[in-house]
C-alpha cells in the first residue's frame, strides 16, 4: 500500500512520519472525518445549537420520519433525532471522562510496575490487575454501578475501575523494554533520580501507546455506557443511545422502529469510524507496522 522509498523520510521526525503515513490511509481519513463530524455534533450540543429539545414532549406520538422530525417521534411525542443528537454528547462525555482517568491511572500504575519490575511494588500492582481482570467485565461494571446507585458518577467510576488494567499492562511492558535501552542507562549513569527518569525520559516514550489505547478505551467506554444504560444501570435522567434502544424494546412490539434504528445507526457509525481511526493511528504510530508496510 505504501510505496514511498524509506530514504525520503530520513529528514522527518517520527511524528511527521506518522502523520504522513496516516494521511495516506484512506480508511483512516474516513474514520477521522466521522469522528470530527461527531465531535462537531457534540460541540453544537454543548453550545446549545442543537439537541436542546431532546426532552420536549408533544402530541405527535410515534410519527414516521419527516422534515420536522428526521427520525420520527417516540411513544410520548419526543423528537428522536433531537434525542439521538443529545445522546451523542452524553456518549462523548462518558468516553472522554473514562478515557482520561482510566488512561492516567493505567499509565501511572503501569509505569510504576514496569519501573520497579521484579520488586514487591510490581508484585502488588500485578496482583491488583489480576484480581480486577479475573472478574467478568460486565459483572464488575454492573456491580460497581449498582453499588453506587444514585451517584452521578457511578457508571464512570465503574468503567474507570475496569478499564485501566489493560493500559497498565501495556505500559508496564513498554517501560520494562525502555529501561533496557541505552538512553535510560545513560540517564541513570549521569545520576538522574528515578522520578525524573521515569517521568521525563521513560513515560514520554510511551506516548504512541497511550494515544492508541485512548482511542480503544474511548470507544469501549461508549459501548459500555450504551449497554449499561440499556440495562438500567447507566444514564438515568438524561438520554443515551442505550436508553433509546431500551425504549425500543416496547416500540418494536408495537411495530415502531424509529428509536431502535436511530440509536443503533448513530452508535454503529461512531464505532466504525472510531475503529477505522484507531486502526489507522495504530498503523501510523507503530514503527514495526510501518516497516512491514514499507517492505511490501
Amino acid at each position: 500500500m505504501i510505496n514511498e522509498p524509506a530514504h525520503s523520510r530520513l529528514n522527518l521526525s517520527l511524528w511527521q512520519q506518522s502523520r504522513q503515513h496516516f494521511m495516506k490511509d484512506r480508511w483512516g481519513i474516513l474514520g477521522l472525518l466521522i469522528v470530527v463530524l461527531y465531535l462537531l455534533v457534540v460541540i453544537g450540543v454543548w453550545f446549545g445549537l442543537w439537541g436542546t429539545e431532546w426532552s420536549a414532549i408533544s402530541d405527535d406520538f410515534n410519527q414516521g420520519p419527516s422534515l420536522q422530525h428526521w427520525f420520527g417521534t417516540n411513544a410520548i411525542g419526543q423528537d428522536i433525532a433531537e434525542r439521538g443528537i443529545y445522546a451523542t454528547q452524553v456518549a462523548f462525555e462518558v468516553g472522554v471522562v473514562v478515557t482520561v482517568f482510566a488512561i492516567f491511572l493505567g499509565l501511572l500504575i503501569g509505569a510504576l510496575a514496569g519501573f520497579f519490575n521484579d520488586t514487591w511494588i510490581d508484585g502488588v500492582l500485578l496482583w491488583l490487575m489480576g484480581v480486577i481482570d479475573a472478574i467478568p467485565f460486565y459483572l464488575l461494571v454492573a456491580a460497581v454501578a449498582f453499588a453506587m446507585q444514585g451517584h452521578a458518577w457511578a457508571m464512570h467510576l465503574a468503567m474507570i475501575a475496569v478499564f485501566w488494567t489493560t493500559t497498565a499492562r501495556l505500559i508496564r511492558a513498554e517501560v520494562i523494554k525502555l529501561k533496557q535501552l541505552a538512553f535510560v542507562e545513560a540517564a541513570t549513569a549521569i545520576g538522574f533520580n528515578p522520578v525524573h527518569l521515569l517521568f521525563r525520559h521513560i513515560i514520554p516514550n510511551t506516548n504512541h501507546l497511550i494515544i492508541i489505547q485512548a482511542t480503544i478505551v474511548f470507544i469501549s467506554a461508549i459501548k459500555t455506557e450504551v449497554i449499561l444504560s440499556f440495562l438500567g444501570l447507566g444514564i438515568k435522567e438524561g438520554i443515551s443511545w442505550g436508553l433509546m434502544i431500551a425504549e425500543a424494546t416496547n416500540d418494536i412490539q408495537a411495530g415502531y422502529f424509529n428509536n431502535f434504528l436511530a440509536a443503533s445507526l448513530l452508535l454503529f457509525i461512531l464505532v466504525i469510524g472510531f475503529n477505522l481511526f484507531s486502526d489507522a493511528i495504530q498503523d501510523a504510530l507503530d514503527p514495526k507496522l510501518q516497516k512491514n508496510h514499507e517492505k511490501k
Partner: protein
Amino acid sequence: MADTKYLLYLSLLVLLLSGCQEQQNTPEKNTADTEKVYRHSIDGKPTSLDPIKASSVYSNLLVVNIFDTLYSYQYLARPFQLKPNLATTMPQISDDGLTYTISIKKGVKFHPHPAFKDGVGREIVAADFIYSIKRSFDPKNRASGAWLWQNKIIGLDDWKQAGADYDKDVEGLKSLDDHTIQISLLQPYPQLIYSLAMGFAAITPREVVESLGAEFGSKPIGSGPFILDQFNSEAAYLLRNPDFRQEPLDLTAEGYSAARHEGYGLEALADRSPPFLDRLEVHFINESSSRWQSFTKGSEIHYTTVPKDKQNTVLLRKDPIELHPKITSEYHHSYGMEAGFVYHGFNMADPVFGYHPDAAQNNKNKALRCAIRSAHDWQQKNRAFYFGLGTIFPGIIPPAVPEYDADLSTASIEKDLMAAKKMLADNGWQTQNLPEFEYHVTGSVLQKQFFEQMRGFLNQVGYPNQKIKYHPYPSFGNFNQAIKNREAPFFFLGWTLDYPDAENTLQLFYGPNQTPGSNNFNYQNPAFDALFEQSSTMLPSAQRTALYRQMNQMVIDDCVVISGLSRKKIHLWHKNIITFPDREIVGGFHLRFVDVQ
C-alpha cells in the same frame, strides 16, 4: 475424513433447523395428561405473602388463594356482591350496628405443616380469626392493614398499647364458641364486612406463624384452595389443596348472566367444586413486551392484560371497543373500566413540597404543588399510555363507586400552563429557587416513559431538567417500602378499590392512616379527618355522599394529589382456559374457578 466432516456439518445443520421449527400457537394443556396447569401473569411481584402485609394487588391476589377470608365476592356479579366464604352466612348485625356475629364453617383445615401436631393441618376455629386480626396491631409486625380496624374494634387499640400480648383478650373480639366470632365495635362501621373479604383479614395459624417467624411471608400456610409450593422473584407455584371444602359452584348464585358470560365455557363449571386446577402458577412479569411474548408464544403464560404497546395491534376500534379478528379468533377477551385509578401523589411530610412549619413557605409549597398539577396534561397521558381509553375524573372518588360526582368541576384535571406559571411567579418560584423534583417509581421502560412525560410537563412551566431526578426502584416492593418510609416526595401509583365504597379512597387521606398505613400522602387535615370520622359511621345515604364530596373537594383544593384516571383494561386468555378474569376489588378470588379444557 472429508466424509466425516460433511457428516458433522450435516448434523449441525439438522440441529440448527430443528431449532427453527414453527412454534405451535396452541397452549400447552398439561405437563402430564392428568395434570391441569394454569399459568397466570401479573405485572408486579409481591414482597410478602403474609396477609398482614398484603397491601398490593400482587400480594392480595396470592393471599386470597392461599388463605381463607370470612367473606369473598361473587365470582361474576357486577356490581360486586359479597358472599360468605369461610363464614357460613352473612353476619348477624345488631340493631345499633355495633355487634357482628359470624359463624364459621366446621371442619375446615389448615394446610399441612410440621408445626401442627403430626404435621397435619388442624381445624380452623374462631380464635384463629381473632389471632389474625391481632397480628395487624402488633407493632413488631409492621403490618399494612391495621388502618382497617384502627379505632373501630373495642379494646383492640388498647391491646396494642398494652404491649400486644396475644394471650390477653380483646373485648371487641370474642369467640363465643369454636365456630362463632363476635366483633364489637366502638361505633358503627358499615365497611367492616368489606374488610373481612380482604387479604388483610385472612386467617393464619398461630403455631405456624410463631414457628416460622419472618419466614412466614415466603412460606405461608393457610386454608385456601391452593397450597404454596414455591415462591421466588419470578413466580409463585401453587398446588391444589386436596382437602379444600367441597362447595359445588352455583353459577346463578355467582352472578352468571348469559348475555355477559356466554361463550367462555363457564357453564361447564356448574355444580363442580373448586379448585379445578392441579397447579396454579402466577408469573411476575413486569416488562410488558416480555409478558406479551410469553403469552403469544402459546406454551407459557395463559393470561395477560393487553400492554400499552400492543393496543394498536389488538384494538380494531376503541369506541366501542372492538378487537382485531386475529386476536378474537385466538384468544378469549373481556374488558371494563377498573375499580380504581392512577394518580400522582405528593408526600406532605416532605417539607420541600408538603407541609412546612413556616406559614409563608407552606403557602409557597402549596402553590408549587398546584402549579405542577396545572402543568400536568391528563389528556395527553391518556392518549400516550392508555390509548385514549381511560376515564379522567377530578379528585379521588372514581367513577366506579356510587358516590362519584359527574358534575364536579374539572378544573383540577385541566392543563393550564398560564395559570401554573402565574402561580409560580406570584409565589416567588423562579427557575433558580425551584426545589429538586424527585420522581420515584418502579424501574421499567414504561415507567421511565411516564417519568419522561412528567418531566416534559414540568419543562413547560420552566422546571429545568437538571432539577428533575428520576429515582427508580428494582421492584414494586422496594418502591412501596420507600413510600412507607416517607422517602418518596412524589410518586405515581395506582389504587385498586378494596370495596365498592368511596370511603376506601378517602381513607387514603385520613390523618391517622399516615404511613406506614395507607395514607401515603401523609395528609393531615383536621377538617377532613372530622368529616371522615363523621361519615365513617353512616350507612350509605345522600347525607354521607355529601360528606364524601366535601372531603374530595378538600383534597383537590390542597393539591395533595394529581388525580385521576380510571383505566380500561382488556384481558386476554387462551381459549382452552375457562375463566372470567378480574383484577378489580381485591382481585384473586376468581383463580379458584379457573379450569383447563
